[in-house]
């Protein structure tokens, strides 16, 4: 890989994540040291229940960290106000939006909320950013449709357009490919890669599509029971990181094809 002197947008230092109960901390993962570079697509993979969502929720301040530090643009995450953070970090969540009666344009326009005045009026500048986000995600023909008329794939594109309209350095997506068919899974991830390159944004997503992520991501964060590793997909393959992703009784990682296959001798 060529050595680009890239700007680091998000960085964690020996971060511990987990839940706070009344007396105790339940640590889900610790010693997380990751660096996200500008203009890259980063995939976060790991087995169910390993803490992917917890990590994303911690990075987006939905839940507090347990220990360690998170820096965005070299400023500690704790020092961001709600509004500053809204202009730096946008989200695409797994939950569906409360009202599906919005048109796609209205939905994307809501991404401009951190920039608009008290009543939420859109300026010409806002409109051009919204139009641009719609063009970048190829949903121009859906612009005036209501959200309840969209397929899951179209809805996901609209949500990505909304995040783009928020005009942030970082976009974080929680499992953007669930509920989608094979074609649309690939389509969405390819779209995210294109957006990272064209808009120079840092895009972090969690996913179970390890094969696709290996092919499309600039870097990957792999969460296993023992550690959190990050690096370029090729390096991670040669280090054998993916083998430790799942229990080895059922599926195996094939380093040649970069995908998992079912073990023939597998039996329950």
């Amino acid at each position, binding site marked *: 890989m060529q050595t680009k002197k890239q700007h680091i947008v998000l960085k964690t230092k020996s971060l511990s994540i987990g839940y706070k109960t009344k007396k105790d901390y339940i640590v889900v993962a610790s010693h997380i040291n990751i660096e996200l570079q500008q203009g890259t697509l980063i995939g976060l993979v790991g087995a169910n229940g390993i803490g992917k969502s917890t990590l994303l929720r911690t990075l*987006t301040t*939905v839940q507090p960290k347990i220990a360690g530090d998170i820096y965005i643009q070299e400023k500690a995450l704790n020092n961001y*106000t*709600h*509004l*500053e*953070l*809204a*202009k730096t*970090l*946008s*989200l695409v*969540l797994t*939950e*569906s*939006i*409360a*009202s*599906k*009666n*919005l048109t796609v344009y*209205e*939905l994307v326009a*809501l*991404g401009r*909320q*951190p920039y*608009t005045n*008290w*009543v*939420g009026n859109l300026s010409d500048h806002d409109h051009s950013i919204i139009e641009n986000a719609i063009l970048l995600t190829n949903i121009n023909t859906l612009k005036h449709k209501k959200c309840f008329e969209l397929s899951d794939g179209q809805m996901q594109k609209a949500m990505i357009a909304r995040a783009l309209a*928020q005009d942030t350095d970082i976009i974080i997506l929680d499992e953007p490919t669930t509920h989608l068919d094979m074609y649309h899974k690939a389509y969405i991830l390819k779209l995210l890669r294109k957006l990272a390159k064209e808009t120079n944004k840092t895009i972090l997503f969690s996913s179970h599509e390890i094969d696709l992520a290996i092919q499309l991501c600039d870097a990957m964060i792999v969460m296993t029971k023992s550690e959190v590793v990050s690096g370029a997909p090729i390096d991670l393959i040669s280090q054998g990181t993916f083998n430790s992703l799942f229990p080895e009784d059922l599926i195996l990682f094939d380093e040649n094809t970069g995908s998992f296959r079912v073990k023939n001798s597998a039996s329950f």
Partner: protein
Amino acid sequence: MGVLIVCFFTNISLGSVSIPFKTIFESLIGTTDNYIILHYRLPKAITAILVGSGLGVSGLLMQTLFRNPLAGPFVLGISSGASLGVALVIMGTGFFGGAIASVLISKWSIVIAASLGSFLVLLAVLIVSSKVRDTMAILIIGLMFGSITAAVVSVLSYFSSAEQLQQYIFWGFGSLGNLSWHELLIFFIIYAIGVLLSILSLKALNTLLLGENYARSLGMNIRQSRLIIILATSALAGTITAFAGPIAFIGLAVPHLTRQVFNSSNHKILLPAVLLVGAIIMLICDSIAQLPTSDFTLPINAITSLIGAPVVIWLLVRKRKMVF
């Protein structure tokens, strides 16, 4: 807007005493001094407009805040809180003796008690709702608060005199009349504050259409916005219940009717539309309640449900899809 003006004039012209249009117009512009128009029908028509539009807005705010189409001032116990406040003032004064009672049962003590009751119940629902994530649970909690207040009211009724009971029951029928110009002014001021707070919440309301997590990620201060929305609702619903009694149904139905007609969820369209539709519906209901040409006036509370419910059912069946 045109419909509103027509309804307004129709409402004023109808009543047990028939007054020609010419007289009405003349008394409105001040050339003729018609006592019935100026001191009875005009205040009543204005009250109807304030009540209908105010209840519609408070229903809209609640439906968006709780992301639930079943929400409304009634379902969440605001009106039952107001009822409890009023019941305490009307019937509870029996416990304190007659001397204080006569001081307490003024129009103002009823207004204050109703506002306070509705605000406290709404606050309680909100505190509990911050602990539960399920929206359905919030509605059930609101209904429970309604049951509790109803129970307290029955206990109070049991110890009350017949006159006190009658006073309370008549308050419960709802009434748009009996407001003097002076009272109407106070009503309007609190109503205006409620509507102003709603306008201030327009952006927050639209952001809430995405759900709370997205709203937070867009930099919205959820706590503050939620408080403003609740203050607006309790100011509107509480005052209306205080001055006009617990008017059923309007708070729930008007936002639905408006969404169906305007086919939008954008609050910049919905808020003025709900104000307009609420006012129109209330004027129509009041015109019917007066039973034109007869001496009777039916309880407004019964009419809003009798007229409103079939309309909403018809709209939902015809469109086959609920817009929310």
